[in-house]
């Protein structure tokens, strides 16, 4: 039993490390928050397509707040560049929404979606 314990400890430790590197901590982020991000991207996309810029600005704010809640859960297993890319995209999206530039706004949103899919797959 004692010998089994000595083998079990490193196995458990390594399993924990693998779980952390594969995004275990991300699942500590509440599910509504995790699901909100892609949902809010879709809502924002509809606002931009319909040129509802005031609503889009409000929804963009919500998206940024959701992203801030997600970062702590994602930072342990994701690349820094991937996280920074979304941050930069959000900044540019902000500018496009203020300038009511539909083309650029949609393009930034598309890029955010791609980065998000890369992070979560």
């Amino acid at each position, binding site marked *: 039993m004692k010998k089994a314990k000595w083998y079990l400890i*490193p196995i458990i*430790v*390594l399993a924990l*490390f*693998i779980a*952390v*590197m*594969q995004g275990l901590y991300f699942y500590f982020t509440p599910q509504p928050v995790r699901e909100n991000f892609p949902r809010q991207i879709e809502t924002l996309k509809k606002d931009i397509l319909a040129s509802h810029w005031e609503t889009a600005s409000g929804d963009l704010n919500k998206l940024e707040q959701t992203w801030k809640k997600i*970062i*702590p859960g994602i*930072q*342990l*297993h*994701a*690349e*820094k*560049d991937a*996280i*920074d890319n979304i941050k930069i995209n959000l900044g540019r999206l902000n500018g496009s929404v203020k300038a009511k530039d539909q083309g650029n706004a949609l393009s930034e949103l598309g890029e955010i979606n791609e980065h998000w899919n890369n992070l979560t797959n």
Partner: protein
Amino acid sequence: MNEGLVVVVRSIIGFFTLLIFARVLGRQQISQLTFFDYVLGITIGSIAASLSVDLSSRAWPHWVGLLTWTAAVFLLQLVSIKWRQAFNYLVSEPTVVIMNGQIMEDALSSIRYTTSDLLGQLRDKGIFDLNQIGFAVVETNGKVSVLLKPEFLPVTPRDMNIDPQANSLSTELIYDGVIIESNLEKAKVDRLWLDSELNRLNLRPSEVFLATVDGDKKLYVDSYRDRIV
């Protein structure tokens, strides 16, 4: 992103992973090739460092790299134990370079070992006269092992027909002021005996840095109060 926190977590992962992997590999010299060991150490260290601080990539690929290199070393260790021929093919065999006092020039050149390397290794072992050497072998890690001619070997008690006392390993009884109770039983002594021995030396257990006992119940004591005369 809290970069400091992420580096701390990744460093802990890297540190304990390396610790566990090194423990798995054990004490065997990894492949008996000094240069290969050197390169291996640098590679594994570099991967662990990247795992720790390279935030531009995920930790997972670096960890897999560490695992792969460790697994390769482990495999090489298994091959060396189970399949001697394959190991010799991968790593080469020890080579006799001096036989009966004669230098084997062909053997030396086959392993690209120079005479000055050989003489340097011999001097390092305190051998300055080649006439004393019976056999010399260059091991796979480049070190030279020497068997001197019988007339130059050190005298042993057996040569003098002396029957020496059997020696035994020492057991630690006190370390850093703390008595190791489990070792008292191993050394077949008890607390009373230890206390009486320490009383003779006017010492308490808390004043002792290290106390060991051998098979003849001879106690060695080093106290915190060191007197250098």
